[in-house]
């Protein structure tokens, strides 16, 4: 695994009973870059995501995450919360999983749970009101406020997350994931249900995360305008296998990819391409 790569998926296979959802998948995501995982519905993208983020245990293969300091972590052996905690992989969900009964600020505070727990001496210091905890809490609030500003939700910091509009909820979820200060941010269809203006704002946000913070991003997405605009590298899946990989331009012109999306076979796609453009 080269120093440039933050994530290496190596012959990943995932079986559910008799169904093979993902077969022998290998690809790599580069550090401080945005990698997109695309493909028609049912291609297995969310399954791959769930394997990477620890919600499924892979049936075969390996997933390696490498931090800046060179440490390599085998993700297929860690389970759920440890992937977020130790490997510093954060994620958002296709169906938005905020804490609806808590305010936006509280949501972002929960994200900083581990750091705050340590500072509170596993609650004991916090219970007696020790200054070391109070400082840590203040810093946590500052980080949360910072992120709320970034996603333009500062004025709604004290409102219940369940009351937010759909687009705002998506942005809040990303802000919450970023409050865990991850090395790799995994986004599951972040642009789903957003209109053109909101999608553009999302693209801007993700680019700023990559450029200013240097966080590597892996995303699943169907919205091609977002994918094409922000991705550095794209991996295309269909029926559980990788069918193409490369830069946005390469993938866009690949007949295999077009065939997969059109639901036809390759020759027909080539014919469409040649007749069209």
């Amino acid at each position: 695994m080269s120093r440039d790569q933050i994530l290496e998926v190596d012959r990943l296979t995932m079986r559910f009973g008799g169904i093979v959802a993902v077969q022998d998948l290998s690809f790599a995501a580069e550090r401080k870059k945005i990698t997109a995982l695309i493909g028609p519905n049912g291609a297995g993208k969310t399954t791959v995501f769930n394997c990477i983020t620890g919600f499924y245990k892979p049936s075969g293969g390996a997933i390696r995450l490498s931090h800046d300091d060179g440490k390599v972590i085998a993700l297929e052996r860690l389970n759920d919360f440890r992937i977020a905690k130790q490997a510093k992989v954060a994620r958002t969900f296709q169906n938005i999983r905020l804490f609806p009964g808590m305010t936006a600020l509280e949501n972002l505070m929960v994200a900083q749970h581990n750091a705050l727990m340590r500072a509170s001496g596993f609650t004991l210091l916090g219970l007696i009101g020790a200054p070391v905890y109070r400082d840590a809490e203040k810093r946590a609030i500052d980080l949360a406020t910072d992120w709320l500003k970034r996603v333009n939700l500062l004025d709604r910091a004290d409102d219940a997350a369940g009351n937010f509009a759909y687009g705002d909820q998506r942005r809040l979820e990303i802000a919450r994931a970023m409050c865990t200060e991850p090395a790799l941010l995994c986004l599951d269809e972040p642009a789903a249900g957003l209109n053109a203006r909101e999608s553009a704002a999302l693209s801007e946000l993700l680019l700023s995360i990559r450029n200013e913070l240097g966080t590597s991003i892996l995303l699943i997405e169907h919205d091609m305008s977002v994918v094409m605009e922000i991705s550095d590298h794209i991996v295309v899946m269909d029926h559980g296998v990788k069918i193409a990989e490369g830069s946005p331009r390469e993938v866009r012109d690949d007949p295999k990819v077009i065939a997969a999306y059109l639901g036809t076979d390759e020759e027909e796609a080539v014919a469409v391409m040649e007749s069209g453009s």
Partner: protein
Amino acid sequence: MKASTSKQQSAPSALNPGFILKKAVISAAVALVLFSLMVGLRTEAGPSGQLIYWTRFGDLATMVAGVFLGSIAMELLRHWWGPVGTDRFVPPVVRSGIAVAGRLVAPVLLVFTLLVPVIFYNQRYILDLGILVLTYVMLGWGLNVVVGLAGLLDLGYVAFYAVGAYSYALLATNFDLSFWVCLPLAGILAALWGVLLGFPVLRLRGDYLAIVTLAFGEIIRLVIINWQSLTGGPNGVSGIPRPTLFGIPLTADEDGLAAKLGIEYSPTHRIVFLFYLILALALLTNWVTIRLRRLPIGRAWEALREDEVACRALGINTTTTKLTAFATGAMFGGFAGAFFATRQGFISPESFTFQESALVLAIVVLGGMGSQLGVALSALAMIGGFELFRSLEGYRMLVFGMAMVLIMIWRPRGLIGHRAPTVYLTKAHAISSDLVKEGHG
């Protein structure tokens, strides 16, 4: 477009006597069939051991008539009041008034409680009732951590109450340790049990977790009944020493508190002492819970209730989070149990049945899960109500059961309809309980 703040409009309001009558007749017919054997006839073991019966058709007729009239009354009520669940029929002016007054309820209630022994000094009955209510308030606050904050369905809370009570009883009677030494020990033992019982089952969700905790509660009770050499079995443990004011007993002797203070001894002293003792314990529970809510652990509990999967995705160890909730709730239950033992002087397995768990759970749910004030109010209402119905004897559980059903239909989210956030930038907006999840274990 002006939103209507008055009655929630349901079906058009023409009163349909034919429909109401038909419904009443059907209800009465059903009641007749249901009650025909169970009420119309009464069986009993006769003088020579065989079963005999006699008829009670009068009672049967009364009940069927009652159902008939009740059905009519319900339909009329429903017609005039809107469908069940309209808390929206209170106009906003009154509602905001209640909100303002609401902030005062807690401090006023606290002051009143502090003064109860003063006001009702000579009314032993009221003081005893107060002690009972406060015990259940404490139990409610303890279970609130598990069910209300963390969203874990615990139907076996009585187990920790029992562990606390028996720990204190056995430690005090066998090793002569004072109440103040045994109290923390009881809490620790109960918390340990909480962890032991919690650890294997915390993977379970919702209903399954509920029934497993119920099973645990029953196992504890059965073990207590059957392990006679340790617990005295059905006879319980008696002669449990009463608490002392840090070593000074509250008796009539020369080394008693009354003698030391130079006042005349009265048995009321001990009752008053017990009252303030349980009040202190309950307030401790309350204070700790409020503090913990503002700390990361408390926030993690509530986040767990809201969405467990999201918690895991944020790196929170949901297993230890659940265990701490369980253990903390158990600890408070243990304290309450120790108090119970010392107040009664005698404990037996009969005090620790599933009905107790259900009662405490009902208190928590009625209170509006997670709300401290709500739990206190609902404990007052339920235990107070329970006492009021004492004259009904055998019918008490019947009324209680019916009340539980009705309350769930009428106000499933409880008395207090909102949740207060634990941290805010500018202003704390109360979050409506429609948004707050109830947790899935």
